[in-house]
């Protein structure tokens, strides 16, 4: 934003002041990933012999194969949970945001405040009651139950995102559409939704990461065959007997993180753009 000033030469020293800290911090951020990657393609012998950053003498993909072997099955589970949960919570959040900004009614602000508290409750608080409720609903241990849980506790955030975004959308659009004869859903579908691209990206990315990476709900509310990948990863990494196979651990960790990483690398730009578009207005 601060453009180069005329008359002030872009001194190399200044550029260095900018670039050096950036690169240094980038290394700090990148290091664990590099270490994980390197470790995941080394044999255990090499890991014991070498150091964090020593390059593998022989590339081995056996750890990856092993990790895939143990966790591959849960990949589908995670997707089965994440996709509907993200879709539903985003959709509901969008509707909530729409109503809370464009169809305000008495108490709508209070309602929003109520929903927002949901962002902040420590999840341990609701662990047991939720279990009971899921049991009563007949959803205990099912994918559906997990989806429900993630939708409920994701709603607060998606509503917040959409609400803050829609506040900046002129009310006149809705008024104009009402005069044009459009009803509630038509307005949402034809007018508001097409504008929501940036914030949908934010919401989807946020929810996708949160749900994909969730461990607590996953471990507590899943049963054997509906376990999400984080639980499988935990089972793999966190066992206390047997030889620690760091290479497999790292491969498994990377494997579990792959979808979210891909999402971030592909959509990271839109994430920042979406935030700029209004998601963070204080």
């Amino acid at each position, binding site marked *: 934003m601060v453009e180069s000033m005329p008359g002030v030469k872009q001194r190399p020293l200044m550029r260095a002041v900018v670039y050096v800290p950036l690169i240094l911090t980038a290394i700090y951020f990148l290091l664990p990933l590099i270490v994980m990657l390197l470790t995941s393609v080394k044999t255990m012998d090499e890991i014991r012999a070498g150091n964090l950053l020593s390059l593998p003498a022989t590339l081995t993909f056996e750890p990856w194969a092993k990790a895939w072997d143990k966790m591959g099955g849960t990949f589908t589970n995670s997707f089965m949970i994440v996709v509907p949960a993200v879709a539903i919570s985003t959709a509901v959040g969008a509707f909530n945001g729409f109503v809370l900004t464009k169809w305000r009614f008495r108490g709508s602000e209070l309602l929003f405040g109520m929903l927002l508290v949901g962002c902040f409750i420590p999840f341990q608080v609701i662990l047991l009651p939720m279990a009971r409720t899921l049991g009563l609903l007949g959803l205990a241990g099912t994918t559906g139950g997990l989806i429900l849980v993630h939708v409920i506790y994701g709603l607060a955030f998606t509503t917040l995102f959409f609400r803050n975004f829609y506040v900046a959308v*002129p009310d*006149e*659009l809705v*008024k*104009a*559409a*009402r*005069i*044009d*004869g*459009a*009803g509630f859903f*038509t307005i949402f579908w*034809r*007018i508001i939704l*097409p*504008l929501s691209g940036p914030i949908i990206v934010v919401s989807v990315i946020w929810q996708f990461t949160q749900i994909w990476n969730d461990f607590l709900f996953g471990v507590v509310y899943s049963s054997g065959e509906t376990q999400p990948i984080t639980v499988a990863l935990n089972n793999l990494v966190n066992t206390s007997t047997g030889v620690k196979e760091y290479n497999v651990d790292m491969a498994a960790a990377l494997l579990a993180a792959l979808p979210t990483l891909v999402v971030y690398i592909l959509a990271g730009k839109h994430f920042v753009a979406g935030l700029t578009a209004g998601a963070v207005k204080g």
Partner: protein
Amino acid sequence: MSALTIRNVKKSFGNTHILKGINLSIEAGRFLTLVGPSGCGKSTLLNIIAGLESPSSGEILIGDRNVNQLSPKDRDIAMVFQSYALYPNMNVRKNILFGLEIRKVPKAEQAAIVDRIARMLQIENLLDRKPAQLSGGQRQRVAMGRALARDPKLFLFDEPLSNLDAKLRVSMRAEIKQLHQRLKTTIVYVTHDQIEAMTLGDYIAVLNNGEVQQFGTPDAIYNDPANRFVADFIGSPPMNFIPCEVVGSSSQGFGVKMTHEGGDFVLEASGDLKPWLGKHVVLGIRPEQITHVVTSRLDERGVSGHACPVHLCEPTGPDTLVTTSINQTKVLARVRPDTAGTPGQSMDLMFDMNKAVFFDPTTGERLRFQLLKAA
């Protein structure tokens, strides 16, 4: 039959009373402009007519029908918003057609309508653009097109020109005027620009403080203001308000006494000011009624020339505004540029009292007098 009737409409937001009982009514095919300072409730009233907000009390009739309970889409109105409110995700064509689509107008008919509108507004070549790719004036026309595509009972325009620059404004104003003359629909038009109000409206309603200050033809509003607020609000540069004493004038009539550095003079009033003789009133006289001397007009009744000190000359192009000071009040005169005097010296100014008005100095209400017969 009146096309729109507003009956004692009140509106409050919490404890703030925005509209305090509005009564208005216009016949079908007429053009009503609502004017008033920013924040006086013009948009609120329009929104109430459209059904976008509901009045706290009072009723809205379109035709003969009370529409209070009707939702906007059932009121058969079209509206142009101050901010255009074009649907950013649709191109111009879609924007224009949206209302028709929703009302399930047949495709063929839709195409015909969009063609007609585009031709009328000269936006044929813009039909496939998105709003973001349009200039301000073009957007304005699309917003207009969206309203015109339908054939509603009532058009509502909320300051449709306020975002345009002066140049574009003038030409759009003319277009709207022609449009109305051609279509003969009923229009309610909000503006805070008095020139628009004057040139466009069959009627003008001047709003202030949530009340209708005056409702009448442009001519009545301009020349026969109901009170000082209306007189001041309408007219640019604004009317001069000169506090002055009522005296008996030479010609058996009455006059008001003017004093400036150069001396005194009396301006003859056309009305019977007897009740106020010897008291103070406020004379309202518009800048264009104080002008350079046109000799041939000096014999007209109520017209007289007086030398006044020139404080400031502001050439605006077509005219020059000359500031003088009378009764310790700054007074503006509008003269032909080549006749303007020099600051510091004095020039002869011709006062035309025929359209002058008087106000109560305390209440600001208009003082009305019987016309004196010509001497």
